């Protein structure tokens, strides 16, 4: 094939091959030209991004720092308070120590005395800095008055004070994720501190949040108890007003100390599970499927679904967690949380219909909210018809807890969308939203169904007497790196009360609860999240002067004719 001799190859190679190779060589030159061009563009852009834009980037940073030092008395960062005016974040004016090496008279003596005041400073390091020519060296930020007095007593002209503000969070970790935190230069790095950074720095005005620190405390206590009891790795909780979207409490566990966010053991502590984390919340999604179904004409509570045997579609098999093995009505499917029945509902609604419902409820895209750490929902792409069946019971679709609570609020409040908000607004500037997603009739039916889950179904432990609690549980297998694990789950419960005229939604989620003895080996939502929500409501309702109604007729009563038997435990 190929001439083996290097000395006379040109004579032996036949003409066509040789010309083909010549042509190829010519074209290699062209390709190399293209490559050179592309890579030169990369190198040029690297220079642009790193140096030219980097110069402005650095200029910006130093500019703000100088501002802080010179006009400290002006730039006080605004406070953040809760709905009742309790301070969540405030700024205290403190002195910070710097050194000017050129003015330093006794570098050694000063360094020695400073190490006595601040044991964490190292003598050698200080001396090296003091013997340099630098005009501005930060020594210690945010001194206490006692420390400042001791430094004044040293009396070296090379030491100076810059006055700036230290951010204080009197409630500590209780509101860490929502309020956020700042860096040592007072720039907001998380939560409201970050998203309202320019507002807080420029106007020094107070921001009033919709949070109620008392509810925040109750919610944290009970969610933490559920996590501890079931040895979970984390959790989240939300209390929201279903009519105007005000968030009364929102917590993400584990949490961190906003005074020292870098001390959080790892990112998991700083991670905001309420707004940034997206989770497959499982059966709670059946609320939306049932609502989409009931919106259809020709569907009534008496419509039945055949859940006698597992459902085969394509290469998937859909099973029930606790099979009833019979034909079920709509209330039964919802109350027993039948996956098969719900999947059949999904099939009846159709892919377009279900996607439209999810999309109307704001579950398909990143939510627009007042803090920046917002997660983007994950959903099947491409969305095939089989995905409609699985998504109908919350499998393969992951949303943030805040999105779920907002969507549920829209379902129960009469059917209009609510926009969750963390910042209190004047009555006048409140947007009058009346975007209707479902009819009033469907909303009423959904309230009856959700009440049934608490009065007779999987969430009976949440039936706080007199408050007509309704809700839906969800126990989903956790998807880790694309695989669903049997022993890792997310247990959640979204509840609303009072169901007769809904005011508040309470949501609690526990990540990876493990079964314990008291729960007889279960780690399902009914054992984990439901009792926690019940405890929250028991503390919350009296605090808000909500009077219990002991002998009101049960909202779920009209559904009884559609139930064929009353059976045991749910999940």
């Amino acid at each position, binding site marked *: 094939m190929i001439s083996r001799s290097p000395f006379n190859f040109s004579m032996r190679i036949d003409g066509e091959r040789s010309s083909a190779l010549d042509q190829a060589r010519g074209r290699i030159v062209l*390709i190399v030209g293209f490559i*050179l061009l592309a890579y030169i563009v990369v190198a040029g*852009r*690297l220079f642009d991004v790193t140096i030219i834009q*980097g110069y402005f980037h*650095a200029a910006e940073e130093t500019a703000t720092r100088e501002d802080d030092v010179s006009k400290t008395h002006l730039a006080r960062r605004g406070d953040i308070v809760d709905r009742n005016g309790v301070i969540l974040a405030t700024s205290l004016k403190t002195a910070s120590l710097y050194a000017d090496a050129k003015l330093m008279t006794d570098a050694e003596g000063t360094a020695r005395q400073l190490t006595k005041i601040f044991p964490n400073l190292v003598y050698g390091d200080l001396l090296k800095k003091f013997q340099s020519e630098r005009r501005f060296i930060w020594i210690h930020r945010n001194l206490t008055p006692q420390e400042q007095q001791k430094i004044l007593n040293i009396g070296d002209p090379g030491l100076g004070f810059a006055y700036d503000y230290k951010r204080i969070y009197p409630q500590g970790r209780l509101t860490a994720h929502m309020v956020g935190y700042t860096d040592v230069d007072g720039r907001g790095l998380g939560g409201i501190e970050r998203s309202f950074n320019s507002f807080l720095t420029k106007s020094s005005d107070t921001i009033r949040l919709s949070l109620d620190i008392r509810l925040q405390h109750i919610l944290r206590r009970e969610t933490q108890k559920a996590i501890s009891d079931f040895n979970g790795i984390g959790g989240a909780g939300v209390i929201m007003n279903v009519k105007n979207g005000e968030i009364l409490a929102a917590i993400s566990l584990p949490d961190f100390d906003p005074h020292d966010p870098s001390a959080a053991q790892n990112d998991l502590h700083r991670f905001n599970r309420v707004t940034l984390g997206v989770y497959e919340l499982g059966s709670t999604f059946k609320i939306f499927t049932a609502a989409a179904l009931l919106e259809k004409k020709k569907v009534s509570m008496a419509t039945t679904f055949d859940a006698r045997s597992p459902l085969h579609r394509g290469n998937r098999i859909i099973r029930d967690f606790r099979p009833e093995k019979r034909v079920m009505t709509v209330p039964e499917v919802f109350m027993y949380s039948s996956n098969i029945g719900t999947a059949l509902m999904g099939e009846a609604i159709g892919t377009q219909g279900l996607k439209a419902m999810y999309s109307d409820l704001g579950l398909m895209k990143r939510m627009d909210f007042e803090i920046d750490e917002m997660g983007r929902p994950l959903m099947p792409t491409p969305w095939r018809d089989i995905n409609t069946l699985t998504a109908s019971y919350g499998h393969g679709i992951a949303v943030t807890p805040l999105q779920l609570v907002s969507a549920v609020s829209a379902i129960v409040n009469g059917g209009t969308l609510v926009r969750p908000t963390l910042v209190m607004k004047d009555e006048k500037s409140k947007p009058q939203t009346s975007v209707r997603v479902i009819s009033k009739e469907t909303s009423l039916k959904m309230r009856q169904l959700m009440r049934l889950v608490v009065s007779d179904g999987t969430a009976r432990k949440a039936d706080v007497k007199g408050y007509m609690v309704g809700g839906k549980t969800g126990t989903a297998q956790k998807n880790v790196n694309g*695989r669903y694990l049997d022993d890792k789950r997310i247990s959640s419960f979204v509840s609303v009360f009072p169901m007769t005229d809904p005011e508040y939604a309470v949501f609690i989620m526990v990540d990876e609860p493990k079964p314990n003895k008291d729960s007889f080996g279960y780690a399902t939502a009914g054992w984990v999240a439901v009792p926690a929500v019940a405890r929250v409501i028991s503390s919350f309702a009296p605090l808000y002067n909500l009077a219990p109604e002991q002998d009101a007729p049960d909202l779920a009563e009209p559904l009884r004719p559609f139930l064929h038997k009353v059976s045991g435990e749910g999940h």
Partner: protein
Amino acid sequence: MFQFQQVFSRTNRSAIAEWWWTVDRGLLVAVTILFAFGVALVATASPPVAIRIGVDDAHFITRHIIMAVPAFLVMIVVSVLSPQYIRRLGTVILLGGIFLMMIIPFVGAEVKGAQRWISLFGLSLQPSEFVKPSFAIVAAWFMAHQKQYASFHGNLFAALLFLSCVVLLIIQPDFGMTVVLSAMFAVQIFLAGFPFRYMVVMLVIGAVGLVLAYSTLDHVKSRIDRFMNPESGDTYQVDRSLEAFANGGFFGTGPGQGTIKNSIPDSHADFIFAVAGEEFGLFFTLIIVGLYLFILLRGYNRLMESNDLFGVLAVGGILAMFGLQAFVHMGSSLHILPTKGMTLPFISYGGSSIIAMGFAMGVVLGLTRRQTRSAIARAGLSVSTRRGNL
């Protein structure tokens, strides 16, 4: 050094000695440096990712090394093979890869809406990664063979093979891989002498394909929209990436000192170049760009001297793929291209794909080796001049 030369005496005809004197050592060194950079960068970029998904800090580092070492060995072994063996090995891998891609819709794992992965011997494999280099080999052979035996319809076979691979990729769907494979094949037929005017026609077809992908595949549309109009959606990752480069400056913030890896989910794979820019600075990133450019120029330069059309087509295609992937990765993180999750060859954490890339580079090294006798002839010359200097 004296000992070394003794072992690898130029007159020694053993396979290893022959390999050492004929292989392009410049390429070999450049690729080895990339391997080393890869380990270092994965080591600094991956711990936050590992912690976020709740595994051990060193999870990705260990796994990267477990894949990088065999990848390096595969590269060396393949580079020792003769063109005939490379052709045969390429054919076997291509057939195996196509077979696996055909069964993926039935047994593959679905990740983020696409079925690309298959589990084999406890490893999760992306067969399309292996199809790319082996396709280059087989297509090159088909086309080179037709040049010699006009009765053999090599060009047609190559085209059919290309179409079937594209169909399999679209089923998955893997848009990025389709673009890379098409670009690679385009370079091959261009080198094989395909007329310019038809190339233009194919470019138009490719553009139409892009528009179709844009209008039918939602995730492609959103990526391109976000690139074209940053206001329209989430440019979080690219913003963080650009910030990282600016933050790095000339010499970087120092190893481990960067912050971008805390805010970008796939910083150890799709945005590792930004991690490099932040922690090691412009100087280092330019070295990386230079290394890729060096490999490409050196490789194509070797082809200019080659008189084996098969080698020219195969290596020309593989280098184009290699260069395009590196370009797309760097371009994405610098916002001169839409964000496309593509790994930086040999540097990104990418599991089994690094083995495929090792195989590809092994083919480049193997097919650009100087032919034995000419090498010995040149070696003889250089030895005598060196003696003269002594």
